[in-house]
């Protein structure tokens, strides 16, 4: 028995140690690693009816990935323009949502982190409460607001800015608002956590030296909050790129989100390997993007989730 | 209780990776003794205690308790109870629950436990405080609760890891006597860890002096103090003046040392080094401040030292004279204050006299840093 294991069992006892180790192994290997690998493997296989799985036709193929790029064989176009466009749009929109959230949440995270007082607890409560409420219902709430007879249209038409209701849904305004809305908290908390630990004297000192407020933020607060900012941005980006509920409920009928394509492959076309391939593409692209940005801004993986 | 249960360490090695925390320790602790490990911070005292209580497996060698090899026996099966350096009282349990935790483990009823807790609370002079939480106690009270908790388990060996280090001086001195009393009352073996030589000397039957993982010397307090076997032991336990030099002549159990500054001096070779020290070896001679006295100026001889006085101080029970010494260290002389008149010698040369039996020679070695 290797030294580490021996010490582990010494320290935790055989029974507790085994339970602990069993749970961790089940989680890490059975729930995290193997399913991902199995999905990866699956994405390289043809879509076969169950009896033929494992049969002679069950060979590795790049078909599913080719499909994303070139479309169905013998199709009219050279490239799978529709799906690629959706993919591209999803990533760009997710980036935009992330940036919007950062700009929108940084001030409040800073405010909450650096202000003392009883009202901060109340604010925090008001922040958290919406996140105890179902994701679907939050999207539903926005749909009510942005609907043809919703509050916005009533206001806009009532005040004479528009003479006909504006279709927020078809124009994706509702979708972006919904995605932004969904992940506000995940942006605020990491930044807040870091800023809270920033010694207010540093800011005072900078102010004493005559630095204008924007420079204080640029040179003192933001560099300090970098781990929180990157953590928040990573989470918001990954989650909005992987969002499904908001696009389904708030997205216009003509504009799809990449996850919706995956969903269709699974549920409407019953083409699991194809869906798995799309999921892999989404996952890998997102991870690469995040890693690239993290390298660019020199932040560590260990900062995520703090 | 009769002789009690002894503890033996046989060729004990403990390594953390490449780092050796304990090097070849051999100790026999007699049953019913109050035994102390004395050494500076980081020398491996806690490590030894953890090996005895079973939290650490020795890398080599054995721990024997009552003659039984403890190899493979977990901490919860050993007849030891440990009082942790930070006490480790359970913060969410009341004092009485803390004290009788070992009974709870054995399934004793709450009534029995309360009863036993009250007895022990009386013993540690905290009657009626059983319903407090540990956080509501003072440092010394926590200390006593920790002792009661350990005693409640009725161990054969009680291990104490610097239990008094967090207390203030007054309380520390009070607890010393109290601990010693408790030990004598319950009659079990105490293994006590400390870096405070005063604690070790006042309480212990036997002391092991440790330095960087190595046990330098084992003996009772008088032996350690009067007859140190290494330079480290001599300089770590109590105050001592050091004279460096080479052995120039050996006469039986005594030797002449040609010192760097003070000429040839005569001293006794410490018991452990008799027959081992050779002419020409680097050696160190130690004389306690209280073993030096003033002699008529200019007296010559191999137990006289001349030196220039740097400064003097009056400490109440003693007059202290500091003269320039060897290697940047001052020589300190303490003269008991018996009401005699005392002249100011500052800046003057003086001659010091000592009894050869009070000067100890050991091989040159590492000194304890202040």
């Amino acid at each position, binding site marked *: 028995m290797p030294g*580490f294991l021996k010490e582990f069992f010494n320290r935790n006892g055989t029974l507790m140690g085994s339970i602990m180790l069993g749970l961790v192994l089940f989680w890490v290997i059975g729930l995290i690693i193997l399913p991902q690998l199995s999905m990866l493997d699956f994405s390289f296989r043809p879509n076969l009816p169950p009896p033929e799985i494992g049969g002679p036709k069950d060979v590795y193929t790049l078909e599913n990935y080719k499909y994303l790029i070139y479309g169905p064989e013998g199709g009219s176009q050279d490239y799978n323009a529709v799906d690629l466009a959706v993919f591209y749009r999803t990533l760009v929109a997710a980036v935009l949502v992330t940036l919007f959230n950062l700009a929108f949440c940084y001030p409040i995270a800073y405010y909450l982190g650096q202000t003392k007082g009883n009202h901060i607890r109340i604010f925090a409560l*008001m922040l958290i409460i919406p996140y105890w409420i179902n994701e679907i219902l939050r*999207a539903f709430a926005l749909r009510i607001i942005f609907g043809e007879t919703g509050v916005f249209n009533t206001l806009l038409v009532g005040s004479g800015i528009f003479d006909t209701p504006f279709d927020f849904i078809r124009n994706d305004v509702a979708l972006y608002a919904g995605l932004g809305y969904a992940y506000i908290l995940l942006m605020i908390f990491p930044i807040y956590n870091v800023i809270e630990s920033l010694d207010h004297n540093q800011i005072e000192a900078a102010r004493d030296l005559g630095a204008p407020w924007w420079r204080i933020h640029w040179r003192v607060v933001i560099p300090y909050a970098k781990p929180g900012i990157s953590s928040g941005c990573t*989470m918001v980006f990954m989650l909005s790129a992987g969002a499904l509920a908001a696009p389904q409920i708030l997205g216009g009928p003509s504009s799809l989100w990449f996850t919706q394509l995956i969903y269709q492959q699974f549920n409407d076309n019953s083409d699991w390997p194809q869906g798995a391939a799309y999921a892999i593409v989404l996952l890998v692209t997102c991870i690469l993007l995040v890693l690239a940005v993290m390298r660019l801004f020199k932040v560590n993986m260990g900062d995520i989730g703090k | 209780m009769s002789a009690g249960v002894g503890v033996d360490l046989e060729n004990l090695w403990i390594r953390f990776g490449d780092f050796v925390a304990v090097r070849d320790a051999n100790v026999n602790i007699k049953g019913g003794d109050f035994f102390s490990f004395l050494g500076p911070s980081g020398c491996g005292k806690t490590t030894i205690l953890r090996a005895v209580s079973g939290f650490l497996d020795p890398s080599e060698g054995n721990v024997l308790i009552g003659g039984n090899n403890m190899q493979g026996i977990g901490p919860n099966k050993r007849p030891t109870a440990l009082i942790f350096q930070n006490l480790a009282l359970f913060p969410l349990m009341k004092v009485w629950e803390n004290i009788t935790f070992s009974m709870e*483990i054995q399934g004793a009823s709450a009534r029995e436990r309360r009863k036993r807790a009250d007895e022990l609370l009386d013993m540690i002079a905290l009657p009626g405080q059983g319903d407090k939480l540990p956080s509501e106690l003072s440092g010394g009270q926590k200390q006593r609760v920790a002792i009661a908790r350990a005693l409640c388990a009725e161990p054969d060996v009680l291990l104490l890891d610097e239990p008094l280090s967090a207390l203030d001086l007054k309380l520390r001195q009070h607890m010393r006597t109290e601990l010693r009393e408790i030990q004598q009352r319950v009659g079990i073996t105490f293994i006590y860890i400390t870096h405070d030589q005063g604690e070790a000397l006042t309480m212990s039957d036997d002391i092991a002096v440790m330095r960087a993982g190595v046990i330098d010397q084992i003996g009772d307090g008088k032996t350690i103090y009067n007859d140190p076997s290494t330079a480290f032991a001599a300089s770590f336990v109590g105050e001592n003046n050091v004279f460096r030099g080479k052995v120039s002549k050996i006469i039986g159990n005594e030797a002449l040392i040609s010192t760097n500054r003070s000429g040839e001096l005569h001293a006794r070779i410490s018991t452990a080094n008799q027959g081992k020290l050779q002419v020409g070896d680097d050696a160190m001679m130690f004389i306690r401040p209280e073993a030096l006295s003033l002699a008529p100026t200019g007296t010559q001889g191999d137990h006289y030292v001349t030196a220039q006085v740097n400064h003097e101080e009056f400490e109440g029970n003693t007059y202290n004279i500091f003269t320039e010494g060897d290697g940047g260290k001052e020589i300190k002389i303490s003269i008991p204050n018996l009401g005699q008149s005392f002249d100011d010698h500052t800046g003057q040369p003086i001659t010091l006299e000592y009894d050869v039996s009070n000067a100890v020679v050991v091989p040159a070695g590492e000194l304890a840093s202040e």
Partner: protein
Amino acid sequence: MNPDKIIRYSIWIYLAIFFAYLLGPLIIMSATAFNSPGFPRMTPWECLTFDWFGALFRDERILNGIWNSVLVGIGTVIMSVSMGLAGALMLTQIWPKLRATYYTIIIAPILIPGVVLGISTLVFWDRINRMLGLGADSFLSNGLFLTIIGQSTFIASYCMLVLVARLQRYDMTLTEAALDLGATHAQAFRKVLMPFMFPAIASAGVLAFLASFENYNTTTFTFGEYPTLTIELAQKVRYGITPAISALAFMIVALTVFFALVNEANIKRKALIAEARKDATVGELAGKVEVPGFLSRNPAAIALIVLLIGTATVVGSAMAYSPDQCIAGVQEQKRLETERRIQELRDQRAKDAAEKSQQEGGAETQSTPKPSNNSGFGSVFAPGTLEGSDSDAGDAAPTDSGGNNSGFGNVFDPNALQNDDN
């Protein structure tokens, strides 16, 4: 105005916008639960109604969804809290060189899109199922099992984060002390570590339940025969929305606020007790804690009581109140509005006809007086006019409402007629 003031004002404006964005949708959605139109909307406000709550509780699928959600939630809480705790304990002990890798792996599920987790769970267990040669109805392809497993994958990571934060403040020597006093590892775990971890375990459990309850992305691939509430809601919301969903949302909001306040009041109470304890001697402790009482200096508790009274009032009035009158009134107005349009149309037609007939030589002038009468219907919306228009509406309705008013069947129920007669 000096710049300081500008900054202060802009902070407040920003905060107002921020919280309007955050809370506005929920408030509006909640309000639509009490408005009578069949499509959830706040404007125009028609009638206060509690009927949508009734509609909600008659909806079998919603009720079944709630039941499934609870089942999944319980399973997920158990799975993810225990895995999260084991993961957290492991993190504190793991060989330092492995720690960073290990942390990355167990934190990754938070970042993996839920869709991907759902798919990988489905694909993986399907394969295991096939490898074991089990059929499509085996335990491993059971929707409940898959959903719990899929959700626990990432919810355990959240739990792990919560638990690690507390575990870092745990003094490992406490466990050693317990062992030293003769406890087995299991006893030390149960009697020392668990009580210490309990607050964090409780929060992790609540967090896990909420996360499970609201999860959609993963569940949508794994639910099988067990559609959770979220799945049912999504189906409904995607294919036609009704205020019954608002009613559900309102109840969830109210419950959330309720529990948040309970929690807050509790925290505050504990703080007050701790404070009292600090300056109290043992003797006066018992008395002193109770004297300040539950309410003093505890705004959350006060808010809680206000909320409770509010709820009681609303529920009470909901029992007594019947929106039928109002609904009938509004529907009457609508019908009249339609009527007016029709009349205008007729008017127009009549005019055209008149012009025609004039041109043709003046027959059929009889129908002209009626339109001129009906031109007064502009004031129909004033309540008083209802009675006046009674007779007119009475005979117009049966003939003309036909296709136009089909949505408002209950205009003709006895109540409505009574109302009209009064």
